[in-house]
């Protein structure tokens, strides 16, 4: 019935129907094998603690925000607020429900975050675009306030912080760096798989239609309001899980201040730099955000003879980030992932430059 009128592109989903049968993504499987198998053995604690775990958690947070902002087009600067909900909710569940297994607690924290996200997404049927962003700002400040003012959430600790509860799955203790790394990795892989399914499905298309032109989407029969709220809920679920992981798998101890507006901006930067509307882009963006400060520190200490103090490095980092954001928005609004894609194409065609 269909004719092949051009050569098959790499991504399977764009191949004509006959070849919809999935081609096994060998590269991806190899990467997963390395991530699950090799890294825990070879990785030292510093790498796991300071680089890989935060990278993974930030990717997950970026993924969550991307679903809402990059795919559905609802800009949000309240990501960290929902992360906070997830963190405190997971904490509360582990604390108050005896014997609740960790995966369920994480899922529960995510679900509660999703519920809160849903509530804050309700205004999206009346309020659009830029104004909606202000709603997310309200969410951010309000949630920060809630988790500071009401001691019930942090079990009346005088410091206002929550600490990692016993992290164990099926009796295996996970509080070592390797354990936390595997926990984080599993969550990220699982949730990324779900996200990929979603964006390739009708749901993802509806979201993107809403992003590109929501009046047209409504007219062709997409229930825009429902999908916007869905985007808020799903996005908040991801952010909630990321928040719980950030607090317990990475920081160890967290408070409302760990999820302030600067964290929201950081997540937004991840998706701008990585590429909005791209799942692979999240990882690229998160890697960038995680690694740049370390690179700068390294450069500052080793190349400039340690003459630059930490505070100045921070400022430099800020400037570089700001400049990069502007540069990306001007030159490559689709982020690093597009730049990398172009590079790859260039390399593939390299002998035949034209």
């Amino acid at each position: 019935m269909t004719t092949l009128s051009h050569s098959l592109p790499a991504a399977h989903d764009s191949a004509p129907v006959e070849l919809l049968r999935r081609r096994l993504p060998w590269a991806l499987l190899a990467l997963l094998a390395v991530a699950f198998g090799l890294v825990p053995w070879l990785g030292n604690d510093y790498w796991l603690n300071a680089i890989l775990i935060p990278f993974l958690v930030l990717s997950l947070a970026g993924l969550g925000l991307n679903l809402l902002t990059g795919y559905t087009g609802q800009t949000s600067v309240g990501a960290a607020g929902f992360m906070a909900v997830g963190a405190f909710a997971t904490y509360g569940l582990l604390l108050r429900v005896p014997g609740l297994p960790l995966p369920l607690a994480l899922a529960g924290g995510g679900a509660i975050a999703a519920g809160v996200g849903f509530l804050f997404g309700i205004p999206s049927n009346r309020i659009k675009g830029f104004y909606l962003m202000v709603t997310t700002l309200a969410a951010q400040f309000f949630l920060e306030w809630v988790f500071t003012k009401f001691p019930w959430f942090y079990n009346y600790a005088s410091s206002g912080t929550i600490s990692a509860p016993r992290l164990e799955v099926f009796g295996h203790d996970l509080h070592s760096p390797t354990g936390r790394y595997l926990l984080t990795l599993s969550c990220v892989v699982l949730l990324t798989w779900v996200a990929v399914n979603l964006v390739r499905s009708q749901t993802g298309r509806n979201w993107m239609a809403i992003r590109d032109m929501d009046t047209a989407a409504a007219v062709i029969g997409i229930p825009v309001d429902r999908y916007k709220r869905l985007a808020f809920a799903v996005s908040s679920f991801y952010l909630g899980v990321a928040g719980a992981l950030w607090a317990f798998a990475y920081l160890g101890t967290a408070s409302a201040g760990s999820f302030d507006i600067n964290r929201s901006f950081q997540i937004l930067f991840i998706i701008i730099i990585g590429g909005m509307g791209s799942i692979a882009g999240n990882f690229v963006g998160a890697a960038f955000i995680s690694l740049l400060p370390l690179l700068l520190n390294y450069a500052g200490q080793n190349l400039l003879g340690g003459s630059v103090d930490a505070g100045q490095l921070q400022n430099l980092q800020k400037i570089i980030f700001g400049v990069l954001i502007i540069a990306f928005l001007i030159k490559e609004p689709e982020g690093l992932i597009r730049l990398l894609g172009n590079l790859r194409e260039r390399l593939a065609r390299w002998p035949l430059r034209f």
Partner: protein
Amino acid sequence: MTFFLETLIGGLLAGTMYSLVAIGFVLIYKASGVFNFAQGAMLLFAALTFVSLQEQGLPFALALLLTVAVMALGAIAIERAVLRPLVNRSQITLFMATLGLSFVIEGLAQGLMGAQVRALDLGIDDVPLFIGEVMVSQFDLVAAATAAVLVTVLALLFNSTRIGVSLRAVADDTRAALSVGIDLNRIWQIVWAAAGIVGLVAGLLWGARQGVQFSLSLVVLKALPVLIIGGFTSIGGAIVGGLIVGAAENLAEVYIGAHIGGGITPWFAYVLALAFLYIRPAGLFGERAIERV
């Protein structure tokens, strides 16, 4: 009753400060359709520059003049480097660019001038005055008066001069303005410079009130509820919006906040704005956009 009046008036006066910040946004928004997130960083930069110059021993007037010059130059640079390349992009993109810009300015500010809190002395004592039985802060009064003067000047400038008319043309329809020969870049430079100066005044006043510190750049976020309530394109709206937000915030903190734990000022204004959005998505004075398919 006295207490209520005091709270109200205190809120109103604080509101004028919000209005001042909001006006800076309105200026830029009217001319280029951008919500300039960097306004806060510009505020901070202005205040820091002024304070640093004063610390070097420069007299008040000279420091002020130099700061104005620096802000104007900065505005031109911003227009060249950030605005022009992004001329046709969406509002959100522009917002994010200004977000990036705010980081650059903050980094520069703190890198060049240090991060400690500085006291800013404008020579205005914060002495309580009594109007009848109502206690009012002298500083707040002066701030309000300054804001009023500034607003009047701006209003005159933009309504009566040729530049003002050009600005309104640009705000209305950029392409049409271009076709009539209005130099877009000039207009934008002027507007950003004006916004920079407004930012300077606001920065100085805020800095004097709470010390020149990093959190000054977050004051900008408070402007958002003001702009939502008053509309993004009206200076009058910014004033009214600022007053409403200031008063409501103060009253809410005292009368509502006391019952639910206090410290609700960080978010109350936003919730208020949200409520407003439900009723009037375009703000009190703003224009309602009609989307045509």
